[in-house]
């Protein structure tokens, strides 16, 4: 599974960082950045939570 982030949709809410610190971070303006696009399986639940709470639908999981 691969994580995709559309940064131009991001509204800098920081929700993804709170849900999955090891996968997401924010740039100087608060816009999300992807630290890890193929996170370890044990992080998948956190990524799914990030997707669920992202208000801007900016994050997706795709089958590689």
């Amino acid at each position, binding site marked *: 599974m691969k994580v995709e982030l559309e940064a131009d949709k991001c*509204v*800098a*809410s*920081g929700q993804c*960082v*709170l*849900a999955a610190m090891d996968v997401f971070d*924010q740039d*100087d*303006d*608060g*816009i999300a950045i992807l630290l890890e696009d193929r996170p370890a399986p044990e992080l998948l639940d956190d990524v799914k*939570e990030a997707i*669920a*709470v992202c*208000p*801007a*639908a900016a994050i997706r999981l795709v089958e590689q």
Partner: protein
Amino acid sequence: MADILADPVSQEPDTAPEFPMPRAARCPFDPPPALKELQREAPLTRVRLWDGSEPWLVTRYAEQRAVLGDARVSADTDRPGYPTKASPDAGEGKLSFIMMDDPEHARLRRMVTAPFAIKKIEALRPAVQRIVDGLIDDMLARSGTVDLVEAFALPLPSLVICELLGVPYDDHAFFQDSTKTMVRTTATPAERGAASREVAGYLAELLGKRIADPRDDLLSSIAGRVTAGEIDHRQATEMALLLLIAGHETTANMIALGTLALLEHPDQLALLRETDDPKLVASAVEELLRYLHITHLGRRRAVTEDIEIGGQVIRAGEGVIMANEIANRDPEVFPDPDRLDLTRDARRHVAFGFGVHQCLGQPLARMELQVVYGTLYRRIPTLKLACPLEDVRFKDDAFIYGVHELPVAW
């Protein structure tokens, strides 16, 4: 009788229930019972507002997120069908980007997102902890009954947003008075207009000073956008006003109402009093955000193209209100929703809204509430309500719900 049966539609009186609805007496934390009933019956219904208009009310969680995430709904209060909370203030400007749509909304919002990034907010945590400890010290130095709103709940967010924006806290009596009027539904449009012009004038002048002499604060960074020609002075003032107001009433009411809710649920309060686990404190904050509902008048939008939500077509030009307090009690998402349970995973609540307009200040609000809920009850373990619950005055008359005063003793 036969006539009535033959033509039921024309005989039907106007049955759309009025919104907002009254809360049940003696149940200040629960959404109005009528709202609950509507949610049980259907995800969407028509309601009647103060001006006789009949927008759609969305009561279920999934449908609310669908509407708030849809680009075909507008947050622009000037759009036809936009359901206003009270008569608009004549001649008033917009409250900046929260009343705009993309791309202008995104352009303006991004100008002020930087200080609200998680790591920058985390860096403020020790300073917020010091403020909280200082306010508690001052409270403990007093004796008898203390109003928690005046002594603690309002000063904390006010001090923090003033510091962040670069607004002198010494002027707080002036703008707290004005912002209180601005969020009171019973204030006349003229009163609300005058109050907002007063604070706007004050902020416009302050912005002028920061344009001439920038410092290291958010107001100066907004001033820099004016200098760079990205926004004009009026837009900058509206932005500063939005941040100042939003930083005040919301967190303050979460602190006071949250404390009252905890005092009424001693087993839950005990969990906070006895823990030093930041995870439990963080989860308590999310649960209280879900359980309480200080934005009790719903999130409002105007639909710009026909959309289908929950099996219902909403036409272009119709208004729609998302009653977030009842969505946060949707049993499909939060089992046993009326139970306050600080240990549940409540992170998916919509207390901060959803979609591109989701609250910009939420990382700050979260951090402040974590420090407060993690400190106040541990430091004052005998904290108690100093009057009967019946005597507490709730803010049914304001855009933001909470309590007017919270007399406490220890």
